[in-house]
């Protein structure tokens, strides 16, 4: 697991895992929905990347929690998160 190849773009797997750890507290374990907040597991990587960037740049739901959170993430981190959840949300 820790020794596995880095799957997050330009981020080590452990760091991608730590980043993704924040997401699952609302989006559910491995990104599987537990209620009104949508699941993100297995969604298309390009879609996730575009959506997260739109949140960050205030082009999607500007007052939402997602906008406030993504403003603290750089593009590399967003790409790693998109890849992580597109690939199933586990290491």
């Amino acid at each position, binding site marked *: *697991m*820790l*020794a596995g190849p880095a799957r997050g773009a330009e*981020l*080590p797997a*452990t*760091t991608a*895992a*730590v*980043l993704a*750890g*924040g997401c*699952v*507290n*609302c*989006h*559910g*374990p491995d990104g599987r*929905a*537990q*209620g*009104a*907040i949508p699941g993100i597991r297995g969604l298309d990587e390009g879609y996730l990347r575009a959506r997260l960037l739109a949140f960050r740049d205030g082009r999607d739901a500007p*007052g939402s*929690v997602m906008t*406030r*959170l*993504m*403003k*603290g*993430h750089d593009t590399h*981190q967003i790409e790693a998160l998109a890849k992580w959840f597109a690939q199933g949300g586990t*290491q």
Partner: protein
Amino acid sequence: MTGPSRRRVLGSLAAGGASLALPAIVRAGAGSARVVIVGGGFGGATAARYLKRHAPQLQVTLIEPAPRFHTCPFSNLYLAGLRSWDSLGHGFDGLRAAGIEVIHALADDVDASRRTLRLSTGQTPGWDRLVLSPGVDMRWDALPGYDEAASRLAPHAWKAGPQTQLLRRQMEAMEDGGSFVMVIPDNPFRCPPGPYERAAMVAHYFKRHKPRSKILLLDAKDNFSKKGLFLQGWKALYGDMIEWVGLADDGRVTRVDAGALTVETAFGQLHKAAVLNVIPPQKAGFIAQRAGVVDASGWVPVKAESFETRQVAGIYALGDATLAAPMPKSAFVANTQAKLAAAAIAADLLGQAPPAALYTNTCYSLIGPDYGISVAGVYRAAEGRIIELPGSGGVSPGDADATFRAAEAAHGASWYAAICADTWGA
């Protein structure tokens, strides 16, 4: 024992600056490494599960007295009548299924040099790494008149358990037209928005069952988490039922008489309550003091990169017990600190590079069943300190419409289900 044990030598090697170059535990066989975690809440249970995910070969033991852990998050909804008591309880079968040993006992003492823990059962498990996630203890010496005996008359209800149920019974027994008085401490304390959400949830109950009642909040500070949103929401849903008095208006309580249900403020005003809820100043849980990881503030200073304690190498601390400002003392934060610490401990024991220290927080507060608000933050370690990323985070918009508030109320419920599933394993 006078000579250093093998474990102790390995431990001090791993604790030194050369630990990454010399993965002592790996050479000793990583399968023999044992991590013991004290506390089965959002910090401790998460750390246990994620340690096993990162390094399945580790022996992971969790110490928690309660067979079911009741959460402070959503306990205000229980006071409101919006949640059952049982819905706040979470068992440990999910941890056991993941291969974690769970011992239901109190941790009484820590021997940091021998690397052992003493439990109320008499067991003395040894550890290569110790993780303390003990939550808070009340400071019974901090507010004159308010000690543990007084809390049985004027509950704090700031640990979810019998105190919470006592406060609910007192609300039920109170006559319509009574005054619910809440005493709120200065920072830092567990769950910064908690008292203000509680005011709203008590108001929700009163509005339906005792509409002539009043809620008086006596606060030791002038500002609080999501203040503008709370003041706006209280007014919108409950009119003048909730009155907040801050420090500048003599809100700081300096004496409590739990028998008479009265409190006295700094400038000598006396307030009489029908139900008195005193949230006293707090400190790190008992076992942190026994471990020698607490400083003069009563809290645990930690390294921002790993949440290893600054005082004792090999002992980590998580959650409300730590000094981690600007991160708040929230369940979400305890959970993300645990994930970082689990990754850092696994990497250290396996002789691998540590993860980047990144943390997030999202806290929802409920003002009414269809009226939620939130605060979020993104943090990272920078030169030994924790900083909030500039431009990130913040609270819900002040001018949001009813649809937005209703969505955040639903998101709060969804958050609770998700973080509990992540922490204890559904």
